[in-house]
């Protein structure tokens, strides 16, 4: 597992990560969300010992990453797929990695085949597409069969097949009991693969809960409705205090009521309905609400939303 306590990183006057504490548990995919510049990549870099924290600590299986003798056997990470020597072949890149942790060289061929790069293994990396570099980075992360994996934007540059593959891979890794932390700005993608979410804004923790809890607790339920007389229908729904907004194509989006309640109000107003459905709250909605709080209260830090046991 990954344990982060009071992690802080200051670059001059800029506080990139501010007293961050959370755990990433094994057996689940944990999504790591936040707006650009929220401190996600800086946090991951500190976990991996690439940047030194100004304060606090990040432990992997109870130890600082920088003390590991065979790091690839403990932690696999994909941070920046473009961060590698373009003149080296994909196979050579992994050979260097394998030698550092005493990993058998046959494992290099195995992971290259696993990520679909077997045919391009002897080509120089400068000829790789972004998706191929992404797959090479994932191969390096999987090389030591590690228990802890960190992926920063793993679906960037992947085609549809690649996205489906990475979705299945992350699920499999978590189901095998590994600790999986994934950052992504593609909220729909995270909603599909993450069991838990850690949301940060301005370097501070905003939420640390399961995906369902965040969707249920923060994304306000809505009802989509379309009727014969839109104006009469909107007036009937607003009368008891519901919030009604245009939903495009003559639809109305109603907040604060269930589909049954909306149907009953339309019936009472004698408006025939052509469409009535609950709108499942999206992660995007919940995310904007959460990060909006962080932006709104700039000088008073928002209390983190936690539904799990708080970090000690």
């Amino acid at each position: 597992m990954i344990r982060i306590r009071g992690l802080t990183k200051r670059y001059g006057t800029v506080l990139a990560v501010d007293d961050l504490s959370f755990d990433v548990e094994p057996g689940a995919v944990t999504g790591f969300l936040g707006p650009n510049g929220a401190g996600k990549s800086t946090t991951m870099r500190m976990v991996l010992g690439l940047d030194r924290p100004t304060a606090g600590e990040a432990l992997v299986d109870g130890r600082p990453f920088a003390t590991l003798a065979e790091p690839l056997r403990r932690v696999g990470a994909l941070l920046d797929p473009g961060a590698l020597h373009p003149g080296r072949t994909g196979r050579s890149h992994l050979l260097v990695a394998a030698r550092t942790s005493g990993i058998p060289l046959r494992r290099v061929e195995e992971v290259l085949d696993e990520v679909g790069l077997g045919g391009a293994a002897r080509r120089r990396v400068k000829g790789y597409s972004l998706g191929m570099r992404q797959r090479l980075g994932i191969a390096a992360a999987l090389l030591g069969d590690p228990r802890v994996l960190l992926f920063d934007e793993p679906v960037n540059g992947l085609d549809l097949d690649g996205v489906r593959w990475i979705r299945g891979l992350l699920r499999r890794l978590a189901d095998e009991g590994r600790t999986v932390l994934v950052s992504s700005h593609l909220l729909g993608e995270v909603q599909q693969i993450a069991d838990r979410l850690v949301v940060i804004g301005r370097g501070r923790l905003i939420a640390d809960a399961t995906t369902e809890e965040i969707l249920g607790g923060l994304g306000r339920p809505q009802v989509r409705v379309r009727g014969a007389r839109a104006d009469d229908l909107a007036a009937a729904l607003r009368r008891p205090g519901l919030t009604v907004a245009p939903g495009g194509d003559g639809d109305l989006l109603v907040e604060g009521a269930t589909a049954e309640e909306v149907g009953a109000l339309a019936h009472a107003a004698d408006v025939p309905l052509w469409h009535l459905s609950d709108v499942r709250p999206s992660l995007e909605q919940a995310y904007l609400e959460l990060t909006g709080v962080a932006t709104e209260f700039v000088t008073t830090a928002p209390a983190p939303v936690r539904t799990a046991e708080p970090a000690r």
Partner: protein
Amino acid sequence: MTALPIDARPVSGGRVLARTCAAEWTRLWTVAATWWFLAAAAVVCTGIGVAAGSEAAADPAEELTAWGVIAFAVVPAQFALLALALTAGTADHTTGGIVPTLQWTPRRPVLLGARVLVVVGTTAGLGVLVAGAAALAVGAVHGPALGLPAGEGGTLLATVALVVGAGAGLALGLALLLRSTAGALVAVVLLEFVLPLFLGNAGFAWARALAEWLPGSSAVFLLTGEPAQLSTAEAVPVVLGWAAGALVLGGLRLLRGDADR
């Protein structure tokens, strides 16, 4: 869900260093630049050696050997080998490769030690190889006029190892310190060639005295015996001191700094 076992095998520090050295060796030889720099050093050393050997062979009064000719040819040829060491130090920072490098070897003192051992050791070894092969070529082309006495050869090859190894240490240290190929290359050329040449020929005594403390002056003296006012006892500490100083400064930046490009 499968509970994965924790691999808790103890790994000694020596084994970690040996593995990191193996990785550095692979890192060095799996980029084309290493082979190009080696080829350039061999061509320059052999080419200049054979050309200069024609002149020396035509004037027996000079009593030069093939080794003596090669001592002069190593002076320009060493720059290709210093460039090899320099790019081995900057490549991680100019390409972003430092990110995976430190993920795979997070113990930075181990990475630094392995990089110094492999890059400096390899560059010094290649210097010996290039000089030895070039001397054999000169001996083969110019026959008995330019001989290959074993004693002189041993001394010259040991000197080449010292000069090229110290130069590689300086280049690698500056590469780790500056993290820029252009910046480090300018610094190496200034210290090893331009400043010693201009200051050494300046009309001021203080400039000539300063030139004697630069690594380029001592490197040339150790190889060729010129300028005569220097001595081996002075020149050896100068080349080693510059290399050690640059490696300490570059090493501190690697050990203490964030892993930036």
